[in-house]
């Protein structure tokens, strides 16, 4: 017998939970500029998250999927991707969506039951949120196929959760990405929970990154609570894809500090002790400690940024709450490029019914 293949998955981490370096820090992270911006964005993402949950709890927003605990992963994604790249998100990517051009109130539109959130001009060619699990992985491969066919130096970046890696769509996406060496990066936000199902019983493989090996592409784990490790991994994956060196899988280890969505109650299935432990290693505190230790960030800056962020979020919420409701005919008007004759009667009736105040809850 001969060994015909051996693979390995490596985990990268630069900072411990106190923000103390565990190994030599990359040159770019030895200066404050990028990392301070990253920190500010992470704080902003968390403030938006709290606001969205507050709006939901007070009946002013629909079910909302929090990104609490995934701030480093998503902010780094939004900051490292180039504008011409394409983001194919799942439903916990509000931070990268904002950093790539969506307005904060447009993020709120989506969760507030208004399709105009997906229409954001600032989103460019990015896909909107994707609720059906892992289906977006294949769209990313399609985008990457178009990019490759046209010989462009752009990259498709897609994200999913740990549960999504169990789905056929994810595996079919990895397979075609490997077979065609597509310029695509798959980020798995392994936050340890797919609603109530823990990572341990989601999949028998010790890592999710090793699914890449089965598809003939490179895979690695990073500490997703470590912004430096996250940027290193993603930058490398993006550079490789851009240079025609093929796809990558990044399994970013994190912890879902929130419920699955506002419609979920994680206390039904999750030990409080585990959650408490996860808060010890969360990404924002870790980066703040690192910035602090280097003298790049102090309490005054913290307070003033916190105030600024709260004002930004408050303004966005006010804009969101002040938005009108789309007229009912928009339900018809974007279905096809041109309204088919067969739908005219229904569209006309919908308008008449609306004018008469007709509504299910009248």
């Amino acid at each position, binding site marked *: 017998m001969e060994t015909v293949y051996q693979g390995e998955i490596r985990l990268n981490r630069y900072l411990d939970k106190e923000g103390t370096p565990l190994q030599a820090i990359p040159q770019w992270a030895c200066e404050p500029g990028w990392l301070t911006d990253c920190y500010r964005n992470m704080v902003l993402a968390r403030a938006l998250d709290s606001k969205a949950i507050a709006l939901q709890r007070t009946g002013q927003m629909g079910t909302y999927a929090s990104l609490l605990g995934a701030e480093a992963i998503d902010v780094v994604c939004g900051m490292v991707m180039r504008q011409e790249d394409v983001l194919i998100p799942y439903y916990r990517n509000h931070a990268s969506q904002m950093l790539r051009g969506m307005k904060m109130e447009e993020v709120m539109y989506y969760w507030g039951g208004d399709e105009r959130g*997906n*229409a954001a001009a600032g989103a460019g060619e990015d896909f909107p949120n994707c609720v059906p699990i892992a*289906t977006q992985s*294949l769209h990313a491969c*399609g*985008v990457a*196929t178009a990019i490759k066919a046209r010989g462009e130096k752009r990259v498709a970046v897609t994200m999913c959760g740990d549960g999504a890696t169990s789905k056929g*769509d994810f595996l079919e996406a990895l397979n*075609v990405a490997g077979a065609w060496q597509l310029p695509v990066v798959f980020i798995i936000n392994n936050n340890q929970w797919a609603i109530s199902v823990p990572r341990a019983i989601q999949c028998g493989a010790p890592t999710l990154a090793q699914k890449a090996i089965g598809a003939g592409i490179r895979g690695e784990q990073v500490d997703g609570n470590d912004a430096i490790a996250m940027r290193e991994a993603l930058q490398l994956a993006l550079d490789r894809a851009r240079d025609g060196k093929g796809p990558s899988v990044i399994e970013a280890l994190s912890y879902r500090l929130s419920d699955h969505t506002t419609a979920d109650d994680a206390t039904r299935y999750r030990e409080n002790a585990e959650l408490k432990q996860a808060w010890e290693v969360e990404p924002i505190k870790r980066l703040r400690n690192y910035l602090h230790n280097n003298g790049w960030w102090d309490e005054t800056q913290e307070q003033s940024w916190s105030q600024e962020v709260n004002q930004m979020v408050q303004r966005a919420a006010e804009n969101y709450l002040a938005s009108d409701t789309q007229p009912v005919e928009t339900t018809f008007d974007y279905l*096809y490029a041109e309204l088919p004759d067969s739908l005219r009667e229904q569209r006309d009736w919908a308008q008449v019914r609306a004018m008469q105040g007709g509504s299910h809850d009248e």
Partner: protein
Amino acid sequence: MSDPITMVEAVNLALAHELRSDSNVVVLGEDVGVNGGVFRATAGLREEFGIKRVMDTPLAETMIAGLSIGMASQGMKPVAEMQFMGFIFPALEQIICHAARLRNRTRGRLTCPMVLRAPFGGGIRAPEHHSESTEALLAHIPGLRVVIPSSPARAYGLLLAAIRNPDPVIFLEPKRIYRVAKQPVADNGEALPLDRCFTLREGSDLTLISWGAMVKETLEAAEKLATEDIHCEVIDVATVSPLDKETLLSSVSKTGRCVIVQEAPRHCSVGSEISSLISEQALLDLQAPVGRVSGYDTVMPYYKLENQYLPNVKDIMETVKQTLEFA
């Protein structure tokens, strides 16, 4: 005059025409490359247009549909082949949850100009899962177009229109008539209209409504009935969703009687929708209940029994006569 060609050759001709005239058009699917497709619908395309335009994919239907959506969002025009419609089911989530809604859910920011071709229907002694007619499953989905040609000329003109259409089109090819009849088809790049029925034969006594392979038997029945002085109008629905209600209703209003002919099971079918449309909007013009000829509401039998499942000319003639005899 161009040489007569079969329907599958007409499909090939349309694909080649669009690959030639629009650099955004690509053909993809299982075995569409070197092999030219299991029915040879893509024969010769890889040789002419190369592997970047005619792509053999890994064997994964969900992936083929999902990939096409991603490509279409970038302004490409993927024409994907599902090898048989019986294998479309893994792709349904992609088709229903994404392709059909991308324009709507982004308020037009992203669109999905893709075509998904699939041979369908019975009558070629194929193995299990290769012979069903499940067009109604897709016709039920808002945002999709479901187009079914019934002749070489309509296959050519409708496929051109489908590829040029800015929205997703499911293009179902009735494989029983892939090679049954030849017809001269000029490769002139002229598309036929979508969302429009084709009136194939005019008549005043009764309207026969059909689509796909059953159009052949429907026309034969109309021909025979004419010798008995029964003059049927024959309409090929062609786009089964969205429906050209106008043409259907005005014909039925004229003739006062109608028989719908389909290969698919009857329950919750395209025929059910057309029948209820006529009942709702042409009741006072009707002189008899709408008649229906269809497959049984059973699992499609294996091929030894498929000819007992598929409707025939006699079934159509009898239902026409019953409908005419209704007081």
